[in-house]
Each structure stands twice: as structure tokens, then as C-alpha cells.
């Protein structure tokens, strides 16, 4: 028997209720929202900017959420709204890093901005699987847009419309990016078939 308390509709209602209370200054409600969505926000950030900067992006995301809750009207799922904020901060950070390289200048022909996402030490070691190494390397080699679309759609289970909202683009563009991401990943993971 399915548990209605954990259905997507019920989860969304719970989020809206917590957001309503947090908007009115209830810090406990906001802490609950952080608990509920922190893992996905941090995971998404880590895949975009790398583990070293994921903490900062997650922090910036929740600071923005706390100070901007008045702008959340419930038109989209709270998780989608949060991931949109995270994507903005990640894009900003990637642009900044591209303009202010800390090491040798990157080769402009490189496919994507790679900030060591595959060096996720504890997370990856916990699995201890060579497949994870290959997967993370393959993900790092994807352009950021494709990587984000694949993570949001295939890993986190967002709808095409939600991915488009997070990425501030169209559903058509998401479908295209996702198709290219899946093709590239399948090709790079071919040895594991």
C-alpha cells in the first residue's frame, strides 16, 4: 500500500506550508526546509562546480532563499525554486572562475568547465566502484548545460518543464541538451555495457 504522506503532492504541500511559515519569520520551518532540500541542492551544486565549491554554492542558495522567500509564490515546486537559485549561483561562480583562473589558463577547446567534480573524495570512496570513477569523469566532460539537464531530469527526477525553469531556458532546449547528454554518457560508458 502506498504511503500518501510521502506522495509528491503531499511533499509539495508540506513544503508550501513550511515556506509559508518561514516567510512569516519562523526559523524552525526554514530549518526544516533546509533539512529536506539541502542534500539535493548540495549534490546538484557539487556536480556543477565541484565538491570544493559546493558548500559555498549551497550556502549562497539558502541565504538567498531566506532573504527572498517573499518572492516564492508557490507557482512552482519549492525544490524547483531552490534549484533555480542554486543554478544561478553556480553559473555565476563558473563565469567568475573562468575570468579569474587560479592555475594555468584553460584550453578553450576543452568541452566544459571542470572544477574537479570527479575528485569527490569521501562520497566516491564510500562506493569504491570504478564505474563511479568513469561516470564522474564522463559527467565532467559534458558541457555544463547538458550535465545539469541530465542530473536534474534523470537523477533528481524533475519534469522537463521544471528543468527548463531551473536552467532558465525552454523545454525544447532541455530536450536537446538531454538527448546529447544521454548519447555522450552512453558512449563514454560503453566499456561497462
Amino acid at each position, binding site marked *: 500500500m502506498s504511503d500518501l504522506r510521502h506522495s509528491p503532492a503531499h511533499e509539495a*504541500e508540506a513544503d508550501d*506550508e513550511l515556506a*509559508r*511559515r518561514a*516567510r*512569516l*519569520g*519562523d*526559523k524552525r520551518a*526554514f*530549518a526544516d526546509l*533546509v*533539512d529536506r532540500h*539541502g*542534500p539535493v541542492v*548540495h*549534490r546538484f551544486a*557539487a556536480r556543477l562546480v565541484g*565538491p570544493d565549491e*559546493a*558548500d559555498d554554492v*549551497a*550556502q549562497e542558495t*539558502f*541565504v538567498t*532563499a*531566506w*532573504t527572498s522567500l517573499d518572492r516564492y509564490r508557490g507557482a512552482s515546486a519549492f525544490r524547483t525554486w531552490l534549484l533555480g537559485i542554486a543554478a544561478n549561483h553556480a553559473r555565476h561562480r563558473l563565469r567568475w572562475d573562468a575570468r579569474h583562473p587560479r592555475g594555468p589558463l584553460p584550453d578553450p577547446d576543452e568541452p566544459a568547465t571542470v572544477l574537479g567534480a570527479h575528485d*569527490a573524495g*569521501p*562520497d*566516491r570512496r*564510500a*562506493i569504491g*566502484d*570504478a*564505474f*563511479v570513477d568513469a*561516470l564522474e569523469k564522463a559527467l565532467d566532460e559534458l558541457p555544463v548545460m547538458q550535465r545539469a539537464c541530465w*542530473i536534474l531530469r*534523470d*537523477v533528481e527526477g524533475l519534469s522537463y518543464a521544471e528543468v527548463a525553469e531551473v536552467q532558465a531556458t525552454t523545454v525544447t532546449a532541455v530536450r536537446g541538451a538531454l538527448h546529447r547528454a*544521454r548519447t555522450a*554518457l*552512453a558512449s563514454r*560508458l560503453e*566499456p*561497462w*555495457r
Partner: protein
Amino acid sequence: MKDEHETVPPSGDELLARAASTLRALTDDGWVRAHPRVLERALRVVRPARSVVGRHAHGTFEVAVPVLVTRIREHLDDIGDVRTLKVTCVVDDDDDLDSVRVEVSVAFGSAIAAVAERVRTEVRHVVAAATGVRLDADQVAVDLMVEDVHRPTS
């Protein structure tokens, strides 16, 4: 490199499904480590807001609007069958509190007039306690929304 338990090579779709489920299964060590700092930092950030002038026997003081809103919300939460949706403090150019608009929802079947009056009384009481300013009844507007299903707030 292949999983030794696999007898049939996975298709491209199965491979991608395995990749996605592998990422979902990764532990959230990074988040567990970052969580306390992220929450503490976020809640330390002060929301940009105006203040209202409070008055007492020895002079005036300022109360940030979010503080007042939080106080109002806490008191209205104690009223059964009421869910506060929004509290708006209207402040004039001199930072004096001009009026308060409260949007609440009540469960279908509630005594609407009585609830509205209770809300209005509570708001006036909270404002007076927090700022020393006594609002007239017509300075507190209560917008009521009646809902079919009224879920508990906790």
C-alpha cells in the same frame, strides 16, 4: 570492468539508468559536513526590512517589521482553525505604523465574523505590546479565505 554478476550486457538505456541510480545512491557526506554551517549562516542573515517607530514613557525606539510580523504570526498560530498567510505592515514616511493587513485562512464551517474579530483583537494587542502603539480597529484589515481542507500547521 563489467559487473561479474551480469549475464546480459545492459542496453544504453539500462546503462544510463544504472548511472543515475549510482549517483542517487552516493552518500551525502559533503552535505552532512556543510549542513550546520549553511543553516547557521543563512539564519544569521538579516532580511532587508523597514522598521516601525515604537514609543514608551522615556522616548522612542525602532522595531524591525519582520520582528513584528513574527510576533503577530506566533500569536495567531495559537488561535485554533486559523492559518496566517501573510502579514503586511504599512509604514508611513516617518516610520510610524499606519495599519496592518493580515491574510488568514480558516476551515470551512468556522464562524468567520468571530474569527476575524479575534484576529483583529490579537493583532492590536501584539502591536501595542511590541511597539506601544495603539491601533484603532479600522487600522487592522483582516482578509479571510475559507478553505475546504484545513491542514494543521504542525
